């Protein structure tokens, strides 16, 4: 059974990720039937390559550090404290994560361009603009990953430290922060991968001047058919990602240990900004960040209600149509609502796939075998499941085309491939959401239950499940959101007769025609609302009938 639990998800990842990626990368290293690694010398010898790698690292590190540093107080305010309207704000900060980055890029530029509301900052098409966008996209993710652990951290440990005379700062630094360490490392590694592989937003906001490895791979592959260079860059990207994952795994494993977890809600206390300076400071900072996150969203909402300088609902009414093209034609093959339906259906499939594979992997990864070999294998697997986030969507998309081209796996124009591609992106999120909680469960709880005569299934149902259920709900929300917003791999698999919501938004944006841009914005707002609702609902999933632990 153990073997099967390891093998099934691995076969899935191998068939739909490792094999296609290896196939396309290998293409770049074969010239006239012979292995040719000369590309490495050429590409590594080109100073431009190092500039691109440096840009990637600078952007990703700056984006990650800023997002995570801001997310810690955010997680405290949004998850550890209770106050009216908290759920709404939680939903709001989750929205950017799935917005089509082309739309956000254009919205950001509209804010920052010299004539825009924030034009006086002079940030249009600059490095800070890119970093700000990366933080905008990933802040909500980091807040959630850290917050969901924090809200169940037993407050008594910190209270004990305080009783023994520790200052609030010292109690936080020596008790709470170490306990949150693994969750923070987890969040940081995910955010890093998302930042390092950001594509459209870098292109729109920074242009080729700030090209990242991801942008270069896209250019070399789709525009120049220079697979030799693209393959070398893909290998470089993998190395960067592997190093980042290794660092984060080290950080996690040092801090990862059984935590005292309590039922969500028991550790939460009201926010008291008037009485506690800590509450006041964190609340103020979080309010500022949330306002900055809300600003581009608000810009989109406002634009979605405007046409020709007047307020109108016409843009939303237009969603049941197919947009405008020249001479009375239409911009789309199906209405935006039909595309939304496709998106929802695909998202259900992608979520189920991601949850099944992700939960199975998490269960495997949460075990702590005694044999050193098994421990190392688990460590390696732990990092390997993150790789789908670290590989360019172009590489995966082109890999599908040349690897899955023969029966029994000729899936290139099959509708099945889209949810599979999206599940690939969601699986790392599912694992990183559920695993910290499973690992934090004190093994003695399970042992005690077993000793008292509980059958293994019952141990799972009464110990693991109630503690993990909330995370599973959250993971489902993430997977659903990822699927709804995914564009990269989907665009390579698109079937014009069955487009997804991000695909029609992209098409509307690329076609001149009265009202098409406004329609694209309205469709983005619809996407945002759906995601906000899904995320808020998903995390309300609570263990039914669990008493005190």
């Amino acid at each position, binding site marked *: 059974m153990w073997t099967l639990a390891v093998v099934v998800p691995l076969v899935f990842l191998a068939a739909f990720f490792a094999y296609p990626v290896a196939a396309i990368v290998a293409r770049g290293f074969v010239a006239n039937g012979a292995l040719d690694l000369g590309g490495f010398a050429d590409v590594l010898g080109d100073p431009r390559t190092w500039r691109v790698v440096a840009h990637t690292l600078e952007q990703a590190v700056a984006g990650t550090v800023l997002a995570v540093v801001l997310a810690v107080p955010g997680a405290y305010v949004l998850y550890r404290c209770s106050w009216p309207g908290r759920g709404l704000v939680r939903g709001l900060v989750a929205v950017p994560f799935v917005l089509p980055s082309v739309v956000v890029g254009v919205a950001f530029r509209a804010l920052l361009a010299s004539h825009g509301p924030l034009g006086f900052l002079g940030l249009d098409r600059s490095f800070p603009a890119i970093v700000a966008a990366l933080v905008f996209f990933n802040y909500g993710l980091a807040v959630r990953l850290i917050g969901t652990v924090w809200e169940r951290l037993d407050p008594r440990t910190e209270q004990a430290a305080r009783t023994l005379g520790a200052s609030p700062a010292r109690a936080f630094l020596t008790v709470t922060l170490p306990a949150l360490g693994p969750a923070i490392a987890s969040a940081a590694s995910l955010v890093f991968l998302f930042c390092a592989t950001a594509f459209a937003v870098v292109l729109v906001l920074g242009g080729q001047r700030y090209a990242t490895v991801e942008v270069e791979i896209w250019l070399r592959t789709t525009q120049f058919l220079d697979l030799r260079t693209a393959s070398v860059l893909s290998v470089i990207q993998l190395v960067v990602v592997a190093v980042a994952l290794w660092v984060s795994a080290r950080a996690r494993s040092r801090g990862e240990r059984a935590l005292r977890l309590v039922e969500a809600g028991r550790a939460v206390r009201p926010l008291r900004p008037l009485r506690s300076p800590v509450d006041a400071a964190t609340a103020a900072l979080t309010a500022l960040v949330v306002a900055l996150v809300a600003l581009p969203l608000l810009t989109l909402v406002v634009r979605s209600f405007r046409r020709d300088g007047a307020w109108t609902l016409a843009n939303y009414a237009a969603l049941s149509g197919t947009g405008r093209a*020249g001479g009375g034609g239409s*911009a789309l093959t199906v209405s935006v609502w039909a595309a939304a339906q496709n998106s929802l259906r695909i998202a259900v499939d992608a979520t189920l796939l991601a949850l099944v594979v992700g939960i199975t992997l998490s269960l495997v990864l949460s*075990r702590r075998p005694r044999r050193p070999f098994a421990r190392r294998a688990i460590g390696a697997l732990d990092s390997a499941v993150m790789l789908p986030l670290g590989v360019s969507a172009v590489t995966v998309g082109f890999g599908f085309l040349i690897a899955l081209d023969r029966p029994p796996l000729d899936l290139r124009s099959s509708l099945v491939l889209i949810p599979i591609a999206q599940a690939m992106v969601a699986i790392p999120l599912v694992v990183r959401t559920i695993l910290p909680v499973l690992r934090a469960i004190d093994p003695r709880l399970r042992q005690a239950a077993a000793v008292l005569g509980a059958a293994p299934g019952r141990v799972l149902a009464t110990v693991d499940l109630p503690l993990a259920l909330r995370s599973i709900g959250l993971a489902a929300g993430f997977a659903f959101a990822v699927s709804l917003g995914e564009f990269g791999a989907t665009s390579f698999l698109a079937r014009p007769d069955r487009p997804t919501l991000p695909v029609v938004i992209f098409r509307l944006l690329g076609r*001149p*025609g009265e009202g098409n841009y406004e329609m694209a914005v309205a469709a983005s707002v619809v996407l945002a609302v759906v995601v906000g609702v899904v995320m808020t609902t998903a995390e309300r999933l609570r263990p039914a009938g669990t008493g005190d632990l």
Partner: protein
Amino acid sequence: MTTTRTTRRRATGRTTGAALGALGATLALAACSLSSPSPSVTTETSDTPGSTATDGTGTAAPASSITLVTHDSFNVSQDVLDAFTAETGISVTMVAPGDGGALVNQLVLTKDSPLGDVVFGVDNTFATRAIDEGVFEPYTSAALPASAEQYLLGDALTPIDFSDVCLNVDLDWYEENGQTPPATFDDLVLPEYAGQTVVTNPATSSPGLALLAATVGAFGEATSDGTGGWIEYWEKLRDNDVLVVDGWSDAYYVDFSGGGGDGTRPVVLSYASSPPFTVGDDGTARTAALLDTCFRQVEYAGVIAGAANPEGARAFIDFMLSPEFQADVPGQMYVYPVDSSVELPADWARFAPLAPSPWTVPAEDIAAHRSDWIDLWASKLLA
């Protein structure tokens, strides 16, 4: 101790068993959900190859099927496509795996195991690369109109439509600011038009590449040390504060003053067919294309070598040259039909005149120099 360990091992064993059961069940569920028909399917021409979709009017089931590989801007009216299926008994499945560049590269990569039978959307900036790679089967359609012969590139590809990529000006802006709009490439580098132009990057956008090609046509090749010719012109543009952005949508909607946003630049890179979309309530277009700055992009269709249904592919190419399809082209794809006898939409006749003599560069020159041009351009313009 031994007891505890055994218990634990057994526990994890069953845990995993339960999880795997769930895995199987969920995969089955997902498969169900995928294979169940969506409500919209029945109205579509075809879903899977060989399907016997009827369009509700009682048309006979198609005898065969083809897969059309195209780019993500392809569009055709459903009734026009249905007419093809009704006439020939061939149902059409479409796949659109990316933009024009990605399309050609995917054809090259999959030539041993073709993605479909017929391709539409290879343009003259990419065509030669694909022809040289041998991804097409020769076909000359008997339906080719005389007006399309000027666009032929050997016998591998059939021209279907074309468009002129041109700089557009915001007429309202010039009227409000009491200035005469620029008309030529040379005007754009004059001091009075400084800071007025926004264009797109040739590496990341196809109109950007077309503009670069137009300047190559207008100013000639650069010398081997990367000076003179077109690059000298671009340096003048740069010195006159041209703005380069990466995609058509942010150039048009963010920076262009006539794009509905709050943009400040009255000159933008777009198409000769863009002005009809800015026709206001007074019945006149608020923008105009500068017809001395155009590059003509021609889009081709071809039979994919190794096609499963080459006969069907040829029939589809003939269909694309038919008056019905040609007349559908402007409304669906913003391009001009290659058949000049086809009537254009009324607005187009008034506001979207074609460039009388667009700048041209031979397709093989573009294929040969594309990378060098873009690299040189990027080194001077983005530095």
